[in-house]
């Protein structure tokens, strides 16, 4: 579940801790306040890590079972590349709006201080972190060292952990929200996505604590007139 289980990541972290370029950001390696994590989501110009760029970043702290939405971090970033038309369709951020944003290097100090040493929570978090790392590496000389909590993995474990082989697995964001009864806020807005991710995280963590599972429909989903 966390990066520590992977010795490669652990070694990389140690290396980074030793080689961090900007000593002001050593706090990233110190543990954050106990029982706090940060849900994070980025909207990007596209899905290609090598060429696309971040447009918006939203991060929300979770303290215990309280999602501190009122103290969220939210930034509009000015991308260096043109936004792919397909991406505009997804998040409705026009190029002109994105231009109003700040350069990523002006945004990073606040974001890093907001995150601190807290574990990061996300849905397909690898992508968001890879996007962030492109900038972070150049900025402070190391990649984000934070523990990572993948919500889709928690969801998989609660729903399909004991599934017989051959079960059809659906880990889509929509399926997860529906299973947890979390309302669909308008999606592809980084703050809303981060908020829904945070809600899913606290719900899944509680299910895990209580050893409760999400029921799987036996065969086909029963017909639900009028939808869910």
């Amino acid at each position, binding site marked *: 579940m966390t990066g520590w289980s992977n010795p490669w990541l652990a070694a990389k972290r140690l290396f980074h801790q030793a080689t961090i370029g900007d000593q002001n950001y050593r706090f990233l390696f110190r543990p954050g306040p106990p029982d706090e994590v940060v849900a994070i989501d980025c909207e990007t110009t596209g899905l290609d890590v090598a060429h696309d760029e971040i447009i918006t970043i939203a991060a929300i702290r979770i303290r215990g079972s309280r*999602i501190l939405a009122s103290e969220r971090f939210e930034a509009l970033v000015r991308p260096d590349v043109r936004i792919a038309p397909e991406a505009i369709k997804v998040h409705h951020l026009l190029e002109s709006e994105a231009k109003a944003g700040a350069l990523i290097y002006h945004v990073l100090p606040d974001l890093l201080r907001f995150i601190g040493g807290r574990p990061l929570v996300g849905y397909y978090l690898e992508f968001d972190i890879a996007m962030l790392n492109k900038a972070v590496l150049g900025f402070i000389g190391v990649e984000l060292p934070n523990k990572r909590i993948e919500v889709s993995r928690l969801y998989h474990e609660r729903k399909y952990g004991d599934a017989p082989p051959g079960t059809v697995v659906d880990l889509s964001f929509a399926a997860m929200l529906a299973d947890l009864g979390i309302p669909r806020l308008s999606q592809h807005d980084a703050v809303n996505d981060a908020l829904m991710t945070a809600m899913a995280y606290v719900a899944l963590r509680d299910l895990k604590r209580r050893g409760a599972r999400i029921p799987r429909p036996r065969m086909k989903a029963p017909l639900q007139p009028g939808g869910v």
Partner: protein
Amino acid sequence: MTQAFDASNPPFDRLELREIETLRASLDVGYFTPGEVLIAQNAPSESLFIIIKGAVEERDGDELVALLGPRDAFDGRAIVQGESGHAFVARDETLCWLAPKTTVLDLIKRSPRFGAFFYLDISRKLDALEHEAEDQRVGSLMRGRLSDVFMHPATFIEADESIEAAGRRMRDVNSNTLLVRDRDRIGIITGMNLSKGVVLGRLPLETPVRALAHFDVVRLRPDDFVYEALLLMTKHNKRRIAVHDGERYLGVVEDIDLLSFIAGNAQIVAGRIDRAATLDDLAAAAAEIAEQVRILRRQGLKPSVIAEIVSDLNRRLFASLFAMVAPASIREAGCLIVMGSEGRGEQTVRTDQDNGLILAHPVNEAELAAFRTAFSGTLARFGFPPCPGAVMVSNPFWSRPLADFEADFRRWIALPDADAHLNVAIFLDAEAVAGDAALLAKAKAALMDAVRGEQAYLARFAKAVDAFETPIGLFNQLVTAEGAGDALDLKRGGLFPLVHGARALALEKGIPATNTEARLMHLGRIGMLKPAFARQCVDAFQFLAGLRLDAQLAQAAGGSGALVRPAALTTMERDLLRDAFQVVKQFREIVRRHFNLGLFG
């Protein structure tokens, strides 16, 4: 919090845009595991909770007071008073928005309309809501469709036909308006057009109506809105509009029909009852009484006012019928009474007959028997279903000499069984409708005398307030959102305890009023209830009666068939419903303590 928080949900819909932004920016989200306490009983709370998903139990000690679901907000009391009255415990996995207390208090100060939601007593909340509901009702009235309005049937006459023929046709179809067909064009002609042509224009009766008809007919479709008809009439200075469904003419709507659709015509119905010369006239008037309820409710009248108007019409009807059906011997010796909800003046949607006859002395048996059958039978024909418990004139038990009633009162009180309690309750609510009202006054005085000082009897009588529990089931359905709502719950758990508790206290105190609100206010005046609390009881009663009436009307109109569905209520109505049940519960407690009902198992 971005757009995620739904500010259209009351009471937040009363906030201004900037206030909503302030609120949104301050919101956090809390997650609660089943069994977790959100607010402990009699504890302060740092947040107002608004449920996103899940279910929260509102508890008073061990007792479940209410079950709250998505969009419900709590606890105003913990915010405003600094201490919650009840405990709030998560039943399911629950997510809530958490609005900081300081922000909410600040918004309450800035926005009185928003603040009204947090008033502690239901009376002030209802006052604050009153005119909003009114706006809505006027709105819904104007959104009525033309097909809902009374329409004169489309009757045609050829343009070549004479003025005289048109006059006769109008008389035959009992309408003042005809459609005139002149080859391709269609016109309208009215009785007034004919009169003016003949009297002022001195036209011969043989003149073709073409000369008098108006061919600039304004047409609307049956599914057009009532307000469009009003606008067109004003704009074109027309008093009539033809209704056409695209293929043919369905009828003509006159301005007076539109006005009576909007304003109702209770006075007209009253006049019709008073002028009725035959049973058929009365039957026609009786049919119109029921329709008044819907019209009056659409106007936004309180159920108590509607009930008053409808009771008055019903009583006029009964009195007229009595005058027509009863022979002289019975008219002179008898007093016709209505009982139960009809007697309390709380009947709106027609239920069944609850009536009786008190005689000063025995009358001719054959005449009495004939009257019994004729009176109850005719009412049944008028659409007043016979009473299943046979509390009606046709039952000799309820139509007999005063002395017999008095003898039974003593028996009912000495040997009270379930029937006896029911009989006392029904009779206590009696009102005289026709004949010698002094007979009923004497009978009631005898009943109250017989009960005076009989504390054990009074306690047994009052015990029925405990018959039904507060309808938590109502809120369960809210959460599962699939159960058909149940108006019985509203009646039993809400209205009945108020009605019966007020009745029992009125019996003990010798209060002559029969109407529940009047009894409650009287109890307030004599200090039996705190006056402010009496007012709250009245408001709770009116609110519950209003919900019930709306449900009954919806059902009568072929709605879902379900009665009161909590899920169909607005958050505000659900909140008021909780408050109303809370008042009922307190009132029940007072009655219970007063009569020492704890002693009876």
